[in-house]
């Protein structure tokens, strides 16, 4: 720690009161006083303008993205989370790694297990509404396929769900048991990837950091934001449970060598378990009140291992891949990202013994009468979800699952909400205009806005000419398909179609060769 004497700029260095919040980036003047009080290991420089923390250099790359119109205010006006009245029937999609354990005609209750995990990578499935099992058949789902679903019809009048009681001694549950609880509560990550939580933890064995992602870079979507504002402590405790559970998975050998140095040959590699030691709460720098809230909760929980970090409010900053790219460039294995809602579900599964059957979804878009985020049972149809928000004001041009940058268009509104559904958007024709594609004029905009520094123009020009080997050479396999290139293109070229074509053909070529 330099003394004021050898401080080159002649500023006064203040030794701060030792407290418990680790240093995080200062985002506004509001936090600066709190910062001085809460800094433990970091110097703060006093100037005439106030306290300026010295820039801590983090490894990472410059954040690249687009500043989109966020359009979140409409759904934030009604930000108390409610549950809709149970619909007539729901279709619960069965995960690939699960086997139905109910028969047609069975009466099920909310939270009752309706499918058993199949193998160690499987998860159980739970009914999200009381009723009668009507059919177990293939129904169209929201990603354009047909998949096996359990249809449950409402049976009698729904009874109110009794208040959940805390499981006794849940903070003392050993890590191995936590993984089992996750698996048998049907816990699945609430992002579009829908990976069982215990499988994801196993895949990221050896990670030292749990990143809880509270960012939503896409317009309209506010589910994570509303949930974080309503249940900050539950999410933090859920993060702690995920961190603990990570300690139960054995570290893969290739990673152990690089991280821990030489390991004695007598040690069984299956027994080496590192576990996480740090929690990072990722938030967008536009959500100042959320950052303040989480920081104060961490402070009063006295957690030295947790910190809040912000990303610029640019699309696609705040997606799992861009968070890892920004904070752990080249060493993605050192961190594992979970959405905040997954941490909340982990808390409920462990502390309240509640199985995973509902999630917070934003129902929004200009066409919806009362856009809001609300608890939706998994399996409720998009139509019923929109009706729970008082229906539509006008026939929408497109109904999307997910945000306007990466969402999927729905052919019908009778598809069910999945675990990976973050939003249901009904957008008018003014917003989702179709444009005619023109030739590429090589304006460089897509190259400037690519978050993984590709040259989308070169790749798509190659794909246009069926030069899939060239597209591969220019790194098409590194594309994260965020859609930035297609958004900025002045010629409105179908960039994502061409990139997907190049990807599938390139992989096919590599596979044959």
């Amino acid at each position, binding site marked *: 720690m330099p003394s004021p004497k050898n401080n080159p700029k002649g500023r006064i260095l203040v030794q701060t009161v030792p407290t418990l919040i680790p240093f995080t980036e200062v985002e506004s003047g509001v936090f600066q006083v709190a910062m001085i009080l809460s800094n433990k290991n970091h110097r703060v420089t006093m100037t005439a303008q106030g306290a300026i923390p010295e820039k801590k250099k983090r490894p990472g790359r410059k954040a690249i993205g687009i500043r989109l119109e966020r359009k979140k205010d409409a759904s934030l006006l009604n930000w108390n989370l409610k549950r809709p009245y149970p619909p007539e029937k729901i279709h619960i999609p069965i995960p690939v790694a699960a086997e139905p354990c109910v028969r047609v005609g069975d009466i099920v209750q909310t939270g009752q297990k309706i499918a058993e995990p199949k193998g160690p990578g499987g998860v159980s499935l739970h009914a999200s509404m009381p009723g009668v099992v009507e059919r177990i058949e293939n129904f169209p789902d929201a990603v354009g396929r047909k998949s096996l679903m359990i249809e449950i019809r409402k049976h009698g009048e729904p009874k109110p769900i009794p208040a959940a009681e805390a499981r006794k001694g849940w903070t003392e549950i050993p890590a191995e048991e936590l993984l089992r609880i996750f698996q048998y509560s049907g816990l699945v990550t609430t992002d579009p990837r829908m990976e069982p939580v215990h499988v994801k933890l196993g895949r990221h064995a050896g990670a030292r950091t749990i990143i809880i992602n509270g960012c939503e870079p896409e317009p309209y979507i506010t589910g994570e934001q509303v949930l974080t504002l309503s249940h900050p402590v539950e999410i933090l405790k859920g993060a702690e449970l995920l961190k603990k559970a990570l300690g139960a998975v054995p570290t893969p050998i290739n990673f152990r060598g690089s991280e821990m140095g030489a390991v004695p040959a007598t040690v069984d590699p299956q027994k080496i378990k590192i576990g996480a030691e740090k929690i990072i709460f990722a938030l967008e720098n536009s959500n100042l009140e959320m950052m303040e809230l989480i920081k104060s909760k961490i402070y009063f929980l006295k957690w030295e291992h947790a910190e809040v970090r912000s990303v610029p409010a640019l699309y696609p900053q705040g997606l799992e891949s861009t968070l890892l790219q920004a904070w752990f460039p080249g060493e993605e294995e050192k961190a594992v990202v979970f959405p905040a809602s997954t941490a909340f579900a982990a808390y409920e599964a462990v502390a309240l013994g509640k199985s995973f059957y509902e999630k917070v979804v934003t129902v929004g878009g200009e066409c919806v009468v009362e856009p809001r985020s609300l608890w939706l049972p998994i399996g409720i149809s998009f139509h019923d979800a929109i009706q729970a928000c008082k229906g539509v004001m006008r026939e929408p041009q497109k109904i999307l699952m997910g945000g306007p940058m990466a969402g999927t268009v729905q052919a019908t509104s009778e598809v069910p909400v999945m675990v990976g559904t973050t939003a249901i958007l009904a957008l008018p024709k003014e917003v989702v205009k179709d*444009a005619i594609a023109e030739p590429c004029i090589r*304006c460089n905009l897509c190259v400037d806005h690519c978050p993984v520094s590709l040259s989308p123009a070169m790749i798509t020009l190659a794909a246009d000419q069926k030069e899939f080997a060239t597209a591969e050479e220019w790194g098409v396999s590194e594309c994260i398909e965020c859609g930035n290139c297609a958004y900025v293109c002045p010629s409105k070229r179908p960039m994502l179609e061409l990139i997907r074509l190049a990807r599938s053909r390139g992989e096919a070529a590599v596979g044959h060769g």
Partner: protein
Amino acid sequence: MAEATLSYKRVLPPHIHSTASLAKRNWGQLIALAPLFVTACLTGHAEILRVLLICLVSAVAFEFLAGKLFHKKESLRNGEAVLAAALFSLLMPSRCPSEVVILGVFSAVFAAKELFGGTGNYLLHPLLLARVFLQLCFPKVMSEPMLLAGDGNIWVLAAIGLGGIIFLKQKQGYWKTPILFMATCFICEALLGGQAMPLTFFSAVLFTAFFLLADPVTLPLTRRGTMLFVLCAALLSSRLSSEGFSIQGVGYAILLMNLLTPWLEVWLKPTPYKTKNQFKATYLS
């Protein structure tokens, strides 16, 4: 509750787009050129309107013909033909005979652009190629006084500067490109000898920086490549013609660099961010 199930089209994301378009770019550039034409009329270069008119009519006619031949209609719809005509009229001498102008427009719009594949596909800057072609065929006609050569005029310079500011305000291109070009030209001239006609020199440099380098089709597809392109073009154009910087020299310099563009693209291609295979996943899958 018994509403009919609605049907919607299925397409790939993104479902929203920026407001940028080719038409917006072209018409924006035409707006930036407007002060120059107004000033030319007010300062006694009204003959340029005759050249402009011939250029407009012939450019639209050739684009129409090309559209019929190659089944392409973009250039007429998005104002590209009009922009090409306006820029080309500024590159021609004010008292140029009509048939020479029409030949120039033919070689620019039809031969150098549409025969190479139309919008976005040509390798060499079509207007400069046509200008060099006419220079070689009709050296006497082409050396007659033009707006951007000769004595120069402070108002013309001011109009180009205003056009440049309008162009930068529209944020169509990368603001560093014209700035780097102008800076390099000024430094070269300061180091390598004085200019006989500073006003002409400034006008030509500004015009090149804002309007001739504004066509991204012939520039490299990377920012670093574009910067190197512009730097080399500025150095070459200062030295390529005997009387220092001139529009003729610029033509040769940019055409030479256009030929190097594919190599610049490959040499200076951006380095993609690589994710380890086991963690590789797209946002959607």
